[in-house]
């Protein structure tokens, strides 16, 4: 049982080559903040990248940031904030939901779990912002892909290939991201008392307007009481975030209020409250209850998602709220994760995927944590894994049993 703490790319290559020669499976961790995520691993050895940390390039004028994979995300966010910039895709922090401290994730973990947040609708996820990677493959070879510029179609986009690979394809050693200035102003409009289906329609109207809504979420009454210190007073709240230059935000807010007048009065949240609210939604604070009660993260077409929740409620006790115009459901189960029921409903209502992001180790070992794939796609995934990690030494079984 060894944990390796490399300090250079050469050392990372050396560790992987050693693991290869021993045929010894090895777990890759950044800061380890998402270990409770995905299928549990039982490897004897670990590469912990927290010692491989530091910014290698930051040029605010060029909107580009590169850092070693073990660099804490929190450190990078602080650095960016000092120049008025941020990762536009707002990477969520799984810490609170998984019963850990906040602010522990690493840059490598951010890419390989493809983090994002409520701005996903408008700004995409980590995969949409990564510009380049350096990776040690399961062959013990260091390769690079991409670069430091936004427009680039030179060769296959292996940077995107690393996104959502959960450490099963290679060890990312250094990653380059596009960064952007933070919006000057922000506000949130709140519609009150809508049922889930009404909220889906209201959000669709808002997103389909020229109001340039950056985020749209719906919190049913019992969830609404668990954010921003109860300011929403436990009443179902449909939330529309507007960001940008102050005059534009004010103008769009007025436009949307008129557009949505038939849905009742529209309240406005101040900038500070709005920022906190979206951070809490991003980090799933309503379900950060210190328990291991199963939590699902379900991505579906926005106008279908509420139907899944309604159907599920007929047979099980569930707590749910919606982000991404309704298309992202965070679902907390009272008891059993009901994996088959959840996935059958995803398929019934237009498809998508359900990931069991929180559950006891026993459940995560017994159930497919990630949405099972149809046979030809599963076979393709297996072949891709084989091409990056032919001996299967990285995170065996993290995504799918046997891969």
């Amino acid at each position: 049982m060894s944990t390796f703490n490399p300090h250079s790319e050469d050392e990372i290559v050396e560790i992987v080559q050693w693991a290869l020669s021993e045929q010894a499976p090895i777990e890759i961790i950044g800061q380890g903040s998402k270990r409770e995520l995905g299928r549990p691993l039982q490897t004897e050895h670990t590469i912990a990248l927290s010692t491989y940390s530091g910014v290698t390039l930051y040029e605010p004028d060029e909107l580009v940031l590169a850092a070693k994979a073990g660099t804490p995300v929190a450190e990078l966010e602080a650095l960016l904030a000092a120049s008025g910039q941020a990762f536009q895709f707002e990477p969520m922090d799984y810490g609170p939901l998984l019963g850990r401290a906040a602010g522990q994730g690493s840059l490598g973990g951010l890419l390989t779990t493809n983090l994002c947040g409520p701005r996903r609708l408008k700004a995409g996820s980590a995969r949409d912002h990564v510009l380049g990677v350096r990776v040690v493959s399961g062959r013990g070879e260091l390769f690079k892909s991409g670069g430091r510029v936004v427009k680039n179609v030179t060769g296959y986009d292996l940077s995107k290939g690393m996104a959502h690979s959960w450490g099963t394809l290679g060890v990312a050693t250094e990653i380059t991201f596009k960064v952007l200035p933070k919006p000057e102003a922000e506000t949130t409009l709140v519609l009150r008392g809508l049922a889930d289906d009404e909220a889906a329609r209201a959000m669709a109207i808002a997103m389909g307007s020229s109001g340039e809504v950056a985020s749209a979420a719906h919190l049913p009454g019992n969830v609404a009481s668990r954010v921003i210190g109860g300011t929403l007073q436990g009443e179902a709240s449909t939330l529309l975030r507007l960001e940008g230059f102050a005059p534009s935000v004010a103008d769009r807010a007025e436009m949307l209020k008129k557009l949505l007048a038939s849905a009742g009065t529209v309240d406005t949240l101040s900038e500070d409250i709005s920022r906190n609210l979206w951070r809490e939604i991003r980090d799933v604070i309503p379900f950060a209850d210190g328990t291991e009660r199963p939590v699902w993260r379900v991505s579906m077409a926005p106008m279908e998602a509420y139907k899944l929740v309604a159907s599920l409620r007929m047979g099980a006790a569930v707590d749910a709220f919606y982000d991404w115009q309704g298309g992202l459901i965070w679902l907390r189960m009272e008891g059993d994760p009901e994996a088959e029921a959840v996935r059958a409903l995803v398929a019934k209502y237009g498809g998508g995927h359900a990931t069991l992001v929180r559950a006891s180790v026993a459940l995560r070992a017994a159930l497919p944590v990630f949405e099972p794939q149809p046979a030809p796609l599963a076979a393709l995934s297996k072949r891709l894994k084989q091409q990056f990690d032919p001996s299967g030494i990285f995170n065996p079984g993290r995504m799918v049993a046997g891969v």
Partner: protein
Amino acid sequence: MPGLVMPKADEATMSRRAAIVAALQAIVPGEGVVDATNEMRVFESDALTAYHQLPLVVVLPQTVAQVSLILKYCYENNVKVVPRGSGTSLSGGALPLEDAVLLVMTRFNRILEIDYPNRAAVVQPGVTNLGITKAVEHEGFYYAPDPSSQIACSIGGNVAENSGGVHCLKYGLTANNVLGLEMVLITGEVIRLGGKHLDSEGYDFLGLMTGSEGLLGVVTEVTVRILQKPTTARALMVGFPTSEQAGQCVAEIIAAGIIPGGMEMMDRPAIHAAEDFVHAGYPLDVEALLIIELDGPAVEVDHLITMVEAIGRKNGATTCVISQSEEERMAFWAGRKAAFPAVGRISPDYLCMDGTIPRKELPKVLAGMRELSEKYGLRVANVFHAGDGNLHPLILYDANIPDELHKAESFGADILRLCVKVGGVLTGEHGVGVEKRDLMPEMFNEIDLNQQIRVKCAFDERHLLNPGKVFPQLHRCAELGRMHVHRGKVPFPDIPRF
């Protein structure tokens, strides 16, 4: 084909041509198979017209089942396949091979579904880029990525090339606007990726497919994001005495948090060529001209125009005109949009390059290009997606002068080497194809390239799809799969572990 070596045609395949044609006719009856030489001529090149080659046979399927059967047949019979959309590739991605079936997707031209509440359109790959916008604009929607070829190019080709356009600075490239794909593997297996929902349950195959230049699979359906059109758009035309000042202006606009709907730069030769052609009212006494478009609510556009104007003046702009009407805005763009044909008027032929550089390197790269221009004795005009550093140098030459194409190609290769040297890349949006294939080692070493080819191996281990494109050398997958493992010692036993 000057200088370009394509994979050696397989005699065995060529000798089986009649059987292959018959098999394809059985799959796609009627007009769907084209095998007469004179009828195949229209397919012999794409928009990289310096290269042409007749295919073995052309097939134009109409259903996914047909595509699947064609590929399965080719797989089982070891026949190569080159996919083609509208044939507007500027890098030779759709260049036929003598011993390959050319699979033309233009009959997949239906819009399958428009779903406004979920802001998605499901279309067949042969639908043109502009065709999507046309289908949704009556509801105020559009499809954002807008390559200049949008009237003609297909959405399937856009996916294969990860195409961009003026709007991509603000709204992202094809990769950021595609939600789902249906594709057929060379084995004939049909795979669906994504859909109207976001992100993937597993590996990001959508990301790998976008920009894969027809080497991984054949796209048979595309789900794209559609967006509401901005309410207003206005443009500024800002001229500078030096490209350094123009470059600095661009950097400051972006640093101020302003992401224009489009931000294009032209250098003096391009300005003059365009002005002579369309009389857009461009200033002729400047070294660099920026066309900056701001879109969004009127209040925002007015606010930002003031900010941009101030940044321009601060950086020494000698001309700064703000569009006061839709006609004027269109006039500003007319010159930029006509830049290619305008250059076509002043030179019998031109090559369009496509490197990307870090923005701050622009003055250095422009100076380098001037030197190269003198060295090769060929003129060059530059249009430039300024916001994201994507250069389009147009190299002027005359194909009737012996060796001038070759000279222009060497000049182009030197420009791209310069782009890579300053931290940029070989191609920003036009793809590698055959044109930049042999330059790939300028950017990637053998390990990098081999890992990319291994992705290809996961999809198409026999290298039957579009061989000879993208990779200078396509190693056999079995060879790439071999591992050389050295029996190692425990690495650095003296470092602390947990």
